[in-house]
């Protein structure tokens, strides 16, 4: 065996454990769910899957809760650009010399390395309508009937959006900090000597230079948001009154509350197609604003 072939073989051996894991735990179930979406199959019913063609999709478009979940899933995309913007601004501030620079970095990054469920429960306490600190503050400034946050179908989604925005800032900040430290100081110095203000520096020099990072964060952020599940489920289980039911919660309920695996598979593959479409749109659109 030539040296090159042996190297290749060693390479395959090294990736094999991961590849086997991916195949067994992700690829095979994904292909199985692809098959299931054309069937009517109730888990643990003792009955085999029954082929029903596209009936699950017909049922889906007539399902009011599916429409609600699409609307809510589109809403959870809103925190992505906001948290990217805030992450960028904080990264710019913390990239310069400031007091307590390292402490502040750790402070903003802390939510990223903390369990999502733990964070969700902190937000649950913060937004508690009667005794929570946020409403206590609002009452102290004269708002006699502050929002009920998670406890009302009218405001629960806003509370989720605030929670998701805050949750994304730390990660975005760290990625931007890494990007900012790679920037050439010469370009910034030159711009300053030409009389650029801080705002102009940010808008015309720094932001375009870190645009590949912004693109990366947009792609991963949108994918993560569409898939968001744990934090929302921990607090509201999609309620009250289905007001926070997003795609993944809808699919989860169909699959694991009602064991309707065929229908849940159809919802999951629809979610995949939406993620793919949004990612492709971003990929095509990047040519206009990402500078490598």
């Amino acid at each position, binding site marked *: 065996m030539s040296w090159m*072939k042996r190297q290749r073989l060693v390479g395959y051996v090294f990736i094999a454990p991961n590849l086997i894991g991916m195949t067994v735990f992700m690829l095979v179930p994904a292909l199985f769910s692809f098959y299931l979406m054309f069937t009517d199959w109730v888990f643990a*019913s003792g009955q085999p899957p029954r082929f029903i063609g596209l009936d699950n999709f017909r049922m889906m478009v007539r399902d009011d809760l599916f429409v609600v979940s699409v609307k809510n899933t589109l809403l959870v995309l809103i925190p992505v650009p906001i948290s990217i913007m805030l992450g960028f601004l904080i990264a710019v501030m913390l990239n310069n010399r400031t007091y307590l620079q390292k402490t502040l970095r750790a402070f903003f990054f802390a939510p990223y390395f903390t369990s999502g469920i733990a964070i969700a429960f902190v937000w649950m306490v913060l937004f508690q309508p009667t005794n929570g600190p946020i409403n206590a503050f609002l009452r102290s400034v004269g708002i006699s009937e502050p929002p009920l946050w998670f406890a009302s*179908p009218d405001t629960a989604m806003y509370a989720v959006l605030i929670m998701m925005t805050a949750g994304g800032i730390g990660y975005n900040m760290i990625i931007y900090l890494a990007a900012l430290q790679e920037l050439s100081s010469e370009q910034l110095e030159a711009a300053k000597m030409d009389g650029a203000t801080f705002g102009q520096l940010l808008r015309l020099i720094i932001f375009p230079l870190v645009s590949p990072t912004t693109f990366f964060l947009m792609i991963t952020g949108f994918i993560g948001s569409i898939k968001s599940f744990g934090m929302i489920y921990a607090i509201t289980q999609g309620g*009250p009154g289905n007001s926070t039911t997003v795609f993944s919660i809808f699919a989860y309920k169909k699959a*694991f509350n009602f064991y309707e695996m065929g229908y849940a598979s159809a919802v999951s593959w629809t979610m995949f197609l939406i993620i793919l479409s949004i990612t492709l749109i971003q990929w095509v659109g990047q040519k206009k604003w990402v500078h490598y």
Partner: protein
Amino acid sequence: MRNRRWMIAGLALLIALPLALAGCGGSGDSNQMEGTTSPGSSTADSDPIKLTLWGAVPSENGPQEVVDNWNKQNPDIQVEYVRFVNDDAGNLKLDTALISSQPVDMYVTYDYSLYEKRIKAGNALDLSKFSDYDVDAKMGEGAALWKVDDKYYGLPTQKGLSFVWLNKDMLDAKGLPIPTEWGLDEFRDYAAKLKSDHVWGLAQSDYYFNVPINGSLQKQSLQLTNADGTSAFDNPLTVKTLQVYSDMMFTDKSLMPHTEQITSKPALDQMFVKGEAAMLFSTNQIFRTTNNIQEFPRTFKVAAAPAPKVNKDQTDYINAGGLGDVISINPSTKHQEAAWKFMKWYADEGMLPMAAGGRVPSSKDFPVDEAVALMFKGVEDTYDLDSIKRVMFGDLPLGLSRLDRKTGTEQQAIYDKVFTQKLSPEEGAKELARVHNENLKALSK
């Protein structure tokens, strides 16, 4: 040639490694091989039979003591208790274990629709093959609810019900007697009188407003339907129930708003023993907390009242309760006789340690006095025993609805909307019926 040999050796190694690891993982859990049928398994004659019992009661609340007692008396049949949480995720875990030949020899089901589903999936053994135990004679007429196609697939082992737990000291302070029969109007009145700045008049388990609603419909049909097979939810009693609860939340403010409760997730049993709620509408499970005065010290006496009817003079009201904790045998266990022996023992005498957690055995052969004594052992003085015994061991008409699980879950979203005032009680009743009718239609296909 040499390349091929390398490749084959590499692949063999890759396949062998996970298998070896899986083998190591399985070595500590030999029950799979010894209890549930597994091709190629064998047990030496001298080895004790090992059985696994899945149940939802925390092991420290009785089940561990039960299996310890059994294991001491029966060295040839050793039982291990595995706890699952009785929620959607926990039941999914059990169902997955049942269909994937994991070690489940016996399991407890707490919900009729899941019980029926497990039977239809072939995961519960038909107990008519055992002729030495007359379930109807032992458990009484309430057992028949658990018959499917006129056969038992499980033993209903305990008698439980929903009732109202009362802080007797607070009642006494307001000069209120312990109710023996009441409707929602009286219930509301009590809650309003008992509430104060830091005390809710009433706390109740999530979605418990369905108890009076369902209880008013059960007499006509366990499926909560009209004679023509359509949903019976849209009726004046449902509207009244929704209205009274809405008034308690938003007019009297004697009950924590429902959606605030489900999103804040307060520990209701602890609220009650801390004196933060004067009344608690729940089940006999609360004994776990009220009996544990070391961890949850309290100074007041606990009394009990039956669940409120919608109208006090209602004659057709059925209280939510009856026989439950149904133990079934997994048909794939190869020790069906041993499992049956354990189940009979458990139902007739073995479940005694569960009494401290409030579980009343349903078998007539059970020494009930002994169970009651254990239930209040060392804490007798902290209860108004007359009222507790009147409610728990009285002659209230009990029943469990057979509302399908999907309707029950989907109706929760409607209750959310009613108790956030997005729907009026009248609209809520209509919506409850609409969801029910849709599922009835789907089920009839």
